[in-house]
């Protein structure tokens, strides 16, 4: 969609519609992406509470990964995690970590015979 010209825009840089930050996807700012190891995660939800971009998916009071469309990669979640379950991975090296599209680490099922 072409943006409006100066004659159409509200003056003074004001934004007249409330609740508009959903329209501004900040995920492209990210250098590091969080991935979570659910084997370590205790679902304390500290990351959810502290995330400045409300980018932690929570379902049934359990952390279910990250909204990468908005996560800026600030790393507060990883810094504040009490059990070090969150790893910050360079975007350019994201393929070295096996995780689903929401950033939940895929863990190999343990072999019931050897494990």
């Amino acid at each position: 969609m072409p943006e409006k010209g100066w004659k159409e825009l509200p003056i003074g840089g004001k934004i007249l519609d409330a609740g508009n930050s959903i329209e501004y996807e900040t995920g492209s700012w990210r250098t590091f992406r969080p991935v979570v190891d659910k084997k370590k995660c205790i679902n304390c939800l500290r990351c959810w509470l502290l995330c400045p971009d409300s980018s932690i998916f929570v379902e049934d009071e359990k952390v279910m990964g990250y909204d990468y469309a908005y996560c800026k990669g600030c790393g507060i979640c990883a810094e504040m995690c009490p059990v070090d379950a969150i790893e910050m991975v360079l975007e350019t090296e994201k393929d070295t970590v096996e995780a689903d599209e929401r950033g939940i680490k895929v863990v190999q099922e343990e072999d019931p015979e050897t494990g």
Partner: protein
Amino acid sequence: MSTILPLTGNESGAEVMRQIAPDVVAAYPITPQTELMHRFADYVADGKVPTELILVESEHSAMSACVGASAAGARVMTATSSQGMALMWEILYIAAALRLPIVMPLVNRSLSAPINIHCDHSDSMGARDTGWLQLYCENCQEIYDTGIQAMKIAENKDVLLPVMVCYDGFILSHTVERVELLEDHEVKGFIGEHIADHPLLDVDNPVTYGPLDLQDFYFEHKRQEAEAMRNAKPVVLQVAEEYEVLSGRKYGLFEEYFSKDAEYIMVCLGSAAGTAKAAVDELRAAGENVGLLKLRVFRPFPAEELVAALADAKRIAVMDRADGVNSIGGPVFSEIRAALYGRSSAKISNYIYGLGGRDIDIEMMKSVFQDMKDGKYAEEAFYLGVRE
């Protein structure tokens, strides 16, 4: 009905503020603005005006509080001088760019260093590109009249920019003159009720002020601001016309004092225009073809109108009470010469005068006209009244 009182420039300014009765005034005292705010604070303390007066810890805070109050939807004023406005610097731009119609008497005083409390225009001239309108006053009556008009100009929907009402420190601020005042209800009726553009306190219609504005939108918002300044010119004239109906006193973008048919024209602004008029009177009485163009509105700069008024002059001398310190000349000179480029063959010279309150008298003004007649010209500015 009008009242006539002997008032100093600052008392005249305080009277403007009392009659406008802004919702909010945030200010910090500085010479020579102090008596203006002193007098106004008395009015507040005595219950003569319902204004919320916010006393802050610096001018940076004063202008910041004005920005917040104006964005909230209030009618807002402040006042300052010199270093005080220098400390407001970053917020001056923000007030203009957020399109907040704040009115500020600026009692002109030179900038440090060396420290000096007396008049020149280095404070306001430094702020000429902040996006504020600048109106200059010759005398205490003009301070009163201009202050009232300023509020109506600022709040015009096609403008919505802040306005500085500039008047010379001490020369006007502390000098008693005859001032004719309107009745309170006349002023209230003239400026009307303030209806803010998307005020923050309208909680049913929440808006965001001052969000990050990057490569994709900043340019458009600056373009709007430039347009608002262009719009301001006809609005200044329209408000002046309405004010003339109310007061009988006539204002324009500038005043042409015997300059329409003059061969030798001086351009100046502020209180020195009074001295220049006395010089013109004496020279005209002696048969000299001289005149004065007193610039009232410096922002928006009335280039087209100035060209029409000056193009036929044989010689033009532009007086600057601030030095550009740029090896070219003062700010008024630079802009007038730029406006006349390719439109006039008149030689235009520049005189820097009156820095730090240095007096300028009728004889000095006459010497400038004599220089024009004698063909004295230099590419660089002349310094009038400095000891060699």
